[in-house]
């Protein structure tokens, strides 16, 4: 049952996830909150949503809309999407305007240098969590490795590689 309390809870959770996703995607924290702490979705839905997000036009974290919709229908999707993208977009626009004025300030460089390695670590943690949720067999590991090699060696659009991997997955009954 979708209550206003649940929608608000979803909104606040995704605000937090958006604002703590340094350097891109904070998958580790997202999985910890959505699957572990709240138990709103299971690990399978988490991995499915991420894969679907890769197939969609636009930013590859549209999985948040999927999660919101699964948790609480239309209101959940709206709360997750606006919460996740809204505050960070406002912050980015403000930062762009501020940076134009203050990029020479020594503390600007200090902040940048303090945040960059943290963002890298966040990203690596996300890879680990995503690997744990989506690689459950040698066949899956081989498919991921094959996709990685193809992406590195060719200029094939990554959506084509994802679609191709989906076809292979269906054929071999992954």
């Amino acid at each position, binding site marked *: 049952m979708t209550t206003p309390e649940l929608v608000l809870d979803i909104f606040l959770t995704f605000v937090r996830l958006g604002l703590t996703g340094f*350097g*891109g995607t904070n998958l*580790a*924290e997202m999985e910890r909150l959505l699957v572990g702490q709240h138990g709103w979705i299971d690990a399978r839905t988490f*991995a*499915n949503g991420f*894969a*679907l*997000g*890769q*197939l*969609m*036009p*636009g*930013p*590859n*974290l549209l999985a948040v*809309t*999927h999660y919101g*919709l699964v948790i609480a229908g239309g209101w959940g*999707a709206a709360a997750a*999407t606006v919460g996740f993208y809204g*505050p960070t*977009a406002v912050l*980015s*626009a*403000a*930062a*762009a305007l501020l*940076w134009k004025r203050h990029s020479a300030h020594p503390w600007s*460089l*200090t902040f940048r*240098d*303090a945040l*960059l*390695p*943290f963002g*890298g*670590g*966040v*990203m*690596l*943690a996300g*890879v*680990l969590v995503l690997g744990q949720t*989506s690689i459950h067999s040698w066949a899956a590991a081989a*498919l*991921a490795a094959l*996709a990685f090699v193809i992406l590195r060696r060719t200029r094939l*659009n*990554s959506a084509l*590689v*994802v*679609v191709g*991997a*989906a*076809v292979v*997955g*269906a054929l071999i*009954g992954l």
Partner: protein
Amino acid sequence: MPATLPLPPQLEDDPPQATRPQAALPLPPTPLQLARAFVGVALAGIGGGIPAHTRRAMLNRGWLDNAEFAEAFTLAQLTPGPNGVNLAAMVGARLGGKRGALASTLGVLTPGLIAMTAVTVLLLGLPGGLPPALQSALRGAACAALAVMLTMVGPIVRVGWNLKAGRLPIGAAVTLLTFVALGVLRLDLLPVLVVLVGAGLVAHRPAKRTHDNA
């Protein structure tokens, strides 16, 4: 040492012919033009690569030059949140102020929102959950999604990893500690952020007049 912006990581799908604006528009773009441009970026960016497509769209229209784009891209890495959308908001703000930022953000999100909502409603409406073949297909897609992510990680991690404070390899240390704390130990992000970013702020603090603070 770090007085210059780090170069943005090499973007995939980055044609050399797009490095120069082909025509300089005399007027800044209207919000509507920005929205339309970013809908195009979203449609081209199925499967990722939004920054690369944004760059091409902006340079081809003559709205930004390469150096301006590189700065916006680095800034988008530094602000929390999804990079592609942050980049759209930043470029939009730079070119068209608040309304430009709103138009660009909505433009880059709208195509995917429509598609994702439609697909999710279809999947949820299936009686008895996902059919096994579709489940297998999604598992396969998830493997490739992981690979897409892996190709992005290298260049982005390297930028932070190589940062040093004096001779201290603080960048590598913070990257590793963040990875262990969040990925292996699954700690809450906020305290980890406070401690490790705090350590970075101390290590990289602007030089004082004396050198004896250890």
